[in-house]
């Protein structure tokens, strides 16, 4: 397995392997998403409290989970790129940032559209939405810093430091916001994530979560390949690839 990981660190190998993997990821992801959507939108019964509006959960929760997962991947690959100077890791970190930001945006928008029927307003400074908003700012900071620095390798190293600082801060921010929110919570606490979520809702949710994860990997590989191509444009394997492409 170490040889595999070692090989993946090589840009040309990564490029080719990722290229072969992407269609597989695409098909499986599509299947999972369709299955999850069918289970969530058609099969699952309406919630006794929220009626059918809860069905937004099937895209809201996976988006929120992914927004955090991608940040961790971004910080981890950033660290690997920083410590061991592995170019593929740098490319993965750079490619992850916009995808993570999109997931965060999705979590916010779907949360907001869910909030309107649930709380009567489009925006509520509840703990999770507020933390997600701050997470979006963290992502935009990474994206902003990366684009502000001309040299890509320096940009990767700087954003790696920033992502790691952000990573340390995410639990702190989350806890602080949660604590702050308990002081200001209204009388009605709608806890949808209550201990017992019905299986007919849980299963589609998990299927969607898996679908989202594969989707991320697929998009990540697509973006990383282009990033690697750009970075290695002077090298022989890129020349050969571009000529025969």
């Amino acid at each position: 397995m170490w040889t595999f990981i070692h090989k993946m660190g090589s840009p040309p190998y990564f490029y080719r392997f990722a290229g072969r993997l992407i269609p597989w990821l695409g098909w499986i992801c599509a299947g999972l998403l369709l299955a999850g959507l069918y289970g969530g939108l058609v099969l699952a019964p309406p919630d006794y409290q929220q009626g059918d509006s809860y069905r937004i959960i099937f895209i809201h929760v996976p988006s929120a989970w992914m927004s955090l997962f991608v940040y961790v991947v971004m910080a981890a690959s950033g660290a690997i790129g920083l410590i061991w100077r592995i170019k593929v890791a740098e490319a993965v970190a750079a490619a992850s940032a916009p995808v993570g930001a999109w997931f965060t945006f999705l979590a916010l928008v779907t949360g907001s559209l869910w909030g309107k029927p649930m709380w009567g307003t489009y925006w509520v400074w509840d703990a999770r939405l507020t933390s997600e908003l701050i997470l979006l700012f963290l992502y935009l900071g990474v994206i902003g810093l990366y684009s502000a620095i001309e040299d890509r390798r320096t940009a990767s190293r700087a954003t790696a430091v920033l992502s790691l600082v952000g990573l340390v801060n995410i639990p702190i921010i989350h806890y602080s916001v949660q604590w702050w929110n308990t002081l200001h919570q209204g009388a009605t606490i709608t806890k949808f994530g209550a201990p017992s979520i019905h299986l007919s809702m849980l299963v589609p949710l998990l299927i969607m979560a898996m679908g989202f994860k594969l989707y991320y990997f697929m998009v990540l590989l697509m973006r990383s390949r282009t990033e690697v191509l750009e970075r290695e444009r002077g090298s022989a394997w890129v020349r050969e690839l571009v000529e025969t492409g």
Partner: protein
Amino acid sequence: MNMEEFFYMGGYGVYVWSSYAIWLAVMIINVVQPAIKARGTIKRLARALNQGATPR
């Protein structure tokens, strides 16, 4: 659930379906945009190579 109920979503249709529409749009953008960018990059690099220069 019949077709009508499906679209109506117990009165919440607007919220549910706009959420899903936005979600779908974002998913599509995030697949199409990298694909276009990849093709553009390859073309640009090929052009630079054909001009004999080291791609800048």
